[in-house]
């Protein structure tokens, strides 16, 4: 085991209230709303129509191109319609509405060959990732198959398994690492084989000592594998940060991990990959942390995609009416949703409810430099935002705005309560728009 710490970043109250709560299976409701856009990239094309009877695990949305992902039905049932639902980002988009048949136990045959996992070749593993609709479950939801296919001339020497879970409140990855240690390691082994890495690091923050102990107990006897105990700092789990902390390498601006010969996968992702490979179950559900002072019964739940937040929160005895804010994801990077009728999708690591929403009353910039100090990408947010506000677009671009990962550290720490991330998003939006017009 080795120890590492991220320089910069912030450390908000961890509030990991649900760390001791074992993962529970969420009771499947009568109806699911399974969106076709649950990932980064192109929306999946619907493969079913109204009235179709479908089996659990059946592919209902087909990946549209390389950067896209298949969508599967989490349940057996009947397609009621294809309708618009509100996604966590507030945009309305197509979803397959399924009336669940609680009696039926029909399960679809996987669309990939089921073999003993030890016999799977790198190509098999990529096929499984693509067919099973696996995407990065750490939050970015980038299609995993793409990440497992580095360019031919690139040699990946290091694989990092990301178990940092540095967002406050979230404990889904923590529970997964504790309760499914073996599956996570086997999933990591599949990724290792697919990308051909010699060295595997499992990065876990020290606020999860039990998980560190469990992994170290197994991995210290495994050649080339190592647990990295990380001092708890946000945003250590961001890819570029974790790569820098563990390997010392800096992913070039605008580049990807493979540029520095590294592959990186979240624990939830490798777990799902393993389940797809060993049991033939595509990505149809995930572990979600439900927490915050707005729910009476917080916990970690395995929830099928397409369950509405309303149903999740009813189950957790939310104080509807008192709640001011609901967040999909963590409090630093998550999205606050407009209403309760938003379905759980592949990116939903948590649903957090707060009785009191934090409201900002911005001052002028004090020029205190705190935002500069905490930005782990060294973007100098105060200057970028001043340039955005002055609409000096050339300079905005040169200042590196497109590199910002919107981790939120700068806005968190700002004593003037300036919504820096919002300004940065606006700046990026304007630049993209101008680029498109050109």
């Amino acid at each position: 085991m080795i120890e590492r710490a991220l320089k910069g970043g912030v450390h908000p109250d961890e509030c990991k209230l649900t760390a001791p709560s074992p993962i529970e299976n969420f009771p499947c409701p009568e109806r699911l709303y399974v969106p076709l856009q649950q990932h980064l990239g192109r929306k999946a094309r619907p493969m079913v129509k109204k009235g179709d009877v479908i089996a659990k695990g059946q592919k209902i949305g087909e990946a549209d191109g390389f950067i896209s992902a298949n969508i599967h039905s989490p349940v057996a049932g009947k397609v009621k319609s294809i309708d618009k639902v509100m996604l966590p980002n507030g945009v309305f988009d197509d979803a397959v509405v399924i009336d669940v048949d609680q009696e039926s136990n029909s399960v679809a045959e996987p669309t990939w060959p089921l073999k003993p996992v030890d016999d799977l070749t790198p190509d098999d593993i990529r096929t499984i990732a693509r067919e099973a609709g696996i995407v990065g479950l750490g939050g970015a939801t980038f299609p995993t198959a793409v990440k497992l296919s580095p360019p031919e001339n690139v040699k990946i020497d290091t694989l990092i398994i990301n178990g940092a879970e540095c967002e406050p409140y979230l404990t889904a990855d923590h529970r997964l690492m504790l309760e499914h240690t073996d599956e996570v390691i086997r999933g990591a082994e599949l990724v290792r084989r697919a990308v051909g890495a010699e060295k595997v690091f499992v990065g876990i923050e020290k606020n999860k000592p039990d998980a560190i102990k469990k992994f170290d107990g197994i991995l210290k006897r495994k050649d080339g594998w190592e647990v990295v105990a990380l001092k708890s700092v946000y945003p250590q789990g961001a890819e570029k940060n974790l790569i820098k902390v563990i390997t010392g390498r800096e992913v070039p601006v605008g580049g990807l991990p493979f540029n520095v010969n590294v592959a990186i996968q979240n624990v939830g992702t490798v777990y799902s990959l393993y389940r797809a490979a060993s049991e033939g179950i595509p990505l149809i559900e995930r572990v979600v942390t439900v927490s915050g002072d707005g729910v009476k019964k917080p916990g970690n739940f395995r929830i099928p995609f397409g369950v509405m937040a309303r149903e999740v929160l009813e189950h957790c005895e939310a104080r509807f009416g008192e709640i001011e804010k609901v967040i999909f994801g963590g409090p630093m990077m998550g999205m606050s949703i407009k209403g309760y009728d938003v379905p759980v999708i592949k990116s939903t690591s948590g649903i957090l409810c707060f009785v009191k929403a934090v409201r900002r009353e911005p001052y002028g910039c004090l020029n205190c430099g705190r935002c500069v100090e905490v930005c782990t990408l060294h973007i100098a947010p105060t200057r970028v935002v001043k340039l955005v506000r002055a609409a000096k677009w050339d300079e905005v671009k040169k200042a590196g705005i497109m590199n910002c990962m919107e981790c939120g550290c700068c806005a968190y720490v700002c004593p003037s309560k300036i919504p820096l991330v919002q300004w940065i998003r606006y700046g990026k939006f304007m630049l993209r728009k101008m680029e498109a017009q050109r």
Partner: protein
Amino acid sequence: MTEKLYVSSSPHVLSPEDVPKIMRHVIYALIPTVGGAVYFFGLRALAVIVLCGAVAVITEAVILAVRKKKVSTIMDTSALLTGILFALTLPPSVSFGTAAIGAFIAVAVGKQVFGGFGQNIFNPALVGRAFLQAAFPVEMTTWVPPRVLQKVDAVSFATPLGGFKFSHLMTSHTSLFLGSVGGSLGETSALLIIIGGIYLLWRRYIDWRIPVSACASLVLLSAIFYLINPQKYPDPVFMLFAGGFMLGVWFMATDPVTSPVHPKAVWIYGAGIGFLVVIIRLFGGMPEGIMYSILFMNALSPMLERFTRPRMLGEER
């Protein structure tokens, strides 16, 4: 069942630090220095400080009201802080009228003319001070001895820096450090200033690089001159603790609004202040140079910032 959810941009949690809190703590950090002013120069010192604080706050409130801004932001206490800091730069014998004019100028011209909080280029307290220096040069350079030294002939009394410059008189390091010397209300005791400064460093409300780089450059440069000719030039410790250097470096140069944020720029900014102070003190017409040094580096700060953007993670340069 109300379903109105509050929607806002991430992050959804904010740190407990805010502007009013920071300003408040800087004022707390000035308590030892204010106490020292009263101890060395009597209750009149307190009256000057209270007056300047009040004028500053009223000026700010009136201007905010006229500009139709939220007057409640007066509660951020930044105007009060400006008033107090300004008062601490005044000679103890200053008249109440002069002090009030200066405090008004500090807030009105030093801060609000530029657009208010966070917009000003120059340290407002020093703008007020510089104005008085130009308008009332004699009053601004008339010094009285601290109460502990009342026996001294008060008419021809000089500050340690003035004494050195014009009559080559040396003041003991101990008196300089403790503060039983002549000078502006808040500048005489290095000890009390440093106590406040360390408090601010500990709370991380000021950038440590500023005092470190300013002191280091002042000591280094004055040591060079001292080694060349110890008869003609004062020693570095004298330079460090005499005059307004300590007050300026810990409480004015560190003003976030008017100092840079990029680490490299901060080093240059601090070092520049130390450098200029030595040059002005040793070769200029005035005995003290801290005020102009800080104002000059304030003016330079936006440019320093432009050329010192930090290297981004993974950026090739």
